[in-house]
């Protein structure tokens, strides 16, 4: 239950073993590679300029091809996908598991088919717009080009806008000698063929055309409009058949998709290995790797290295972490199975430093209580228990998601317990009720704030512990212990005045607070270089007392959200109860299920985020800055498969 103890590894071997060694480390998933700083003049570092661009390009091609296939190949549902665990390969098996040439061909083919589909799409759009353009003119049974070539007549084909008073068409009709024949008219325009003798005054005619907003129709095909339409239909039909064909063949490529995924896994693992070159040292004669590993796994690791590398070909040095290294040591949280899922909450805020305390166990305890109080319903707790239980029992979920589901599974217990205490089962009062949150809201409020004070005090205790561990006792007293004494003193003082009406108790309490406040001021001055600045900082520190009041009030949400959730459940039950009997037992049943699930969803969401806020702001704010480096072992992508040891 803490932060895993690390040891430092240094591995020296021949350049020839680089890849094999890294593959093993990747399969073990236990080594966090640390950058080796060397002076460039001493060694000629190889591989600095290694070009990973080509590999990255290849991976991105594989991903694009997968994306194309995923659109067509029927994808399994969430449940189907997680019914069985991901397949397991070691890197050697993975390399054998797919055919490189076939994958390359498949990528090319998928790209070609996609391009063809795009072309078809574009052409289909064109056909549609050509058809829209031609359809109104289909009555013309002479090719427009032939009309234009007439010897004695000037023929124009085009449109003029529609107008209620027909003013545009009148403008043309007024023109003497002009023959107008209307091919079509619709809401926007008239389609006209205009014919007039060639010897007429063109200037005047052009003015008439402009006045009537005449727009000439361009027809650029050899066939007659009607024939062209028929041809377009044939072309469209062919294209649609081809499209369907291609889509059908893409749909069948489920096994190709699998191959592409394996290829991506393999190439990605390779990329990650190459990327370590910027951290390690590689010369013509030597390959050096440095990293961190969990202390209790090093023995096993050195044994395995012995199996992999020839005995005289390497040196493995395992050393304890020195204080100078503490800044760079990565942090890995290790907790028991109940606390472990809550690590995600801690890590959402930040990673603890290697020499800090792991706050996760405290997060687990407080967050569970908070969540339970904000949900506070036996029925919702049971549903949550069943739902998460089924997910965990029957599906093989990804690690991150599984941890989250497991956390909600654990949280269902406090929800049920508080539900029993509040005596609420989907808003219906049950006889286990010890506290009626509606009528005893004030008591619950006081309890919530009391819990908050305990939470804040624990935060301050952890602050003191952390600073002691980091060799900073002055800070521990100033930021941790003094504040604990101030707060406790104030509470004793207030209790003395209000509860016991005893002046002596209250004087002792307030006196303690005052002493602790003075300690803060004195330490601020003593611990800082600039004495006056230190004093100012100390005074500012004390001003922080107003923040503590805000923090305590913040915990009132534990009562408020519990109350609001249960009131809404009661209100929903009452609404459905008011329905006349025939509706109550038909549509009423459906409605109450939907409404209760809705309220449960909102309660879960509120309890989840507000619980997190109390942890992050009121608790972590007191002691935790989360600036550590997370332990990130060298491993594979593991999106589609699990990588195992060989």
């Amino acid at each position: 239950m803490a932060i895993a103890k690390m040891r430092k590894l240094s591995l020296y071997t021949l350049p020839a073993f680089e890849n094999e060694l890294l593959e093993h480390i990747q399969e073990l998933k236990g080594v966090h590679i640390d950058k080796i700083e060397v002076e460039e003049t001493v060694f000629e570092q190889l591989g600095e300029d290694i070009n990973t661009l080509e590999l990255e390009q290849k991976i991105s091609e594989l991903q694009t091809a997968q994306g194309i296939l995923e659109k067509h190949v029927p994808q399994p549902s969430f449940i189907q996908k997680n019914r069985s665990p991901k397949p397991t390969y070691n890197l050697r098996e993975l390399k054998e598991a797919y055919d490189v040439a076939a994958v390359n061909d498949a990528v090319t083919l998928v790209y070609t088919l996609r391009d063809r589909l795009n072309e078809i799409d574009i052409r289909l759009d064109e056909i549609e717009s050509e058809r829209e353009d031609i359809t109104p003119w289909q009555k013309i049974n002479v090719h427009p080009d032939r009309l234009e070539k007439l010897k004695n007549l000037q023929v124009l084909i085009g449109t003029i806008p529609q107008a209620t008073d027909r003013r545009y068409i009148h403008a043309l009709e007024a023109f003497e000698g002009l023959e107008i024949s209307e091919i079509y008219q619709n809401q926007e325009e008239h389609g006209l063929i205009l014919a007039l003798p060639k010897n007429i005054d063109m200037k005047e005619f052009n003015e008439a055309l402009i006045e009537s907003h005449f727009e000439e129709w361009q027809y650029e095909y050899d066939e007659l409009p009607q024939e062209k339409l028929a041809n377009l239909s044939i072309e469209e039909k062919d294209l649609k058949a081809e499209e369907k064909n291609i889509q059908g063949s893409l749909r069948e490529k489920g096994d190709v998709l699998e191959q592409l995924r394996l290829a991506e896994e393999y190439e990605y693992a390779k990329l990650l290995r190459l990327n370590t070159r910027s951290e390690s040292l590689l010369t013509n004669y030597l390959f050096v790797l440095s990293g961190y590993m969990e202390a209790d796994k090093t023995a096993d690791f050195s044994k395995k290295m012995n199996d992999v590398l020839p005995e005289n070909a390497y040196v493995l040095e395992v050393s304890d972490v020195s204080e100078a290294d503490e800044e760079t040591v990565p942090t890995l949280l290790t907790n028991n199975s109940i606390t472990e899922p809550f690590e995600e909450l801690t890590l959402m805020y930040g990673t603890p430093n290697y020499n800090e305390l792991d706050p996760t166990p405290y997060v687990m305890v407080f967050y569970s209580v908070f969540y339970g109080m904000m949900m506070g319903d036996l029925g919702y707790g049971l549903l949550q228990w069943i739902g998460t239980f089924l997910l965990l029992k029957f599906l093989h979920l990804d690690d991150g998601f599984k941890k989250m589901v497991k956390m909600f599974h654990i949280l269902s217990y406090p929800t049920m317990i508080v539900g029993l205490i509040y005596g609420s089962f989907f808003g219906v009062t049950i006889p286990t009720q010890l506290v009626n949150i509606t009528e005893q809201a004030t008591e619950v409020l006081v309890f919530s704030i009391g819990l908050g004070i305990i939470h804040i005090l624990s935060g301050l205790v952890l602050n003191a512990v952390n600073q002691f561990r980091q060799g900073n006792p002055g800070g521990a007293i100033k930021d941790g212990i003094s504040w604990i004494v101030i707060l406790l003193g104030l509470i004793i003082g207030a209790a003395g005045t209000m509860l016991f009406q005893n002046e002596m108790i209250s004087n002792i309490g307030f006196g303690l607070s005052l002493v602790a406040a003075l300690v803060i001021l004195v330490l601020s001055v003593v611990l800082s270089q600039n004495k006056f600045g230190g004093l100012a900082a100390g005074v500012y520190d004390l001003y922080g007392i107003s923040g503590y009041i805000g923090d305590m009030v913040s915990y009132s949400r534990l009562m408020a959200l519990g109350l609001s959730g249960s009131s809404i459940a009661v209100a929903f039950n009452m609404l459905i109860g008011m329905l006349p009997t025939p509706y109550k037992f038909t549509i009423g049943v459906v409605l109450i299920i939907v409404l209760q699930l809705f309220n449960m969803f909102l309660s879960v969401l509120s309890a989840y985020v507000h619980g997190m806020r109390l942890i992050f702001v009121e608790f972590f704010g007191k002691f935790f800055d989360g600036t550590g480096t997370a332990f990130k072992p060298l491993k594979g992508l593991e999106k589609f498969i699990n990588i195992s040891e060989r």
Partner: protein
Amino acid sequence: MEWGQFFSEYGGLFFGALGAVVAVVFSGFGSAYGTGVTGEAAAALTKEQPDKFVQSLILQLLPGTQGLYGFVIGFLIIGGLSMDMTLQQGLIYLVAGIPVGLVGWISGIHQGRVATAGLQILAKRPENVVNAIIYAIMVETYAILALIASFLLINLV
């Protein structure tokens, strides 16, 4: 019936009911606005990145709670209404509806704006979406305090 007579007979009921109206209506305004603006922005985001639907839905729902708090207070007030209430009781209910109504209104609007801005975090750095959620629920604290104040006022009747 004269106005004076009406108020002396039913004033309690009238003002009590008005209290429920204030609580439900104004906090509803705030939540409707808040979920509205965030919903618009969430739709724009989901258009480009459909896999972020669930997370954007959570952000959209955050400013929705003010309306629920108002509803809770309204519900509790309505449960306490009766024909023979005194004018004084009715007025306390009216006053009780005001904190959750007005704070819910304003905080709903502002929480909606914070949640909308938070969608930017979801769009660019989805791993930090929790930060956006925390920012948004900072605003909600005041709606919760108002809910508690309203609730304690109801208990005075």
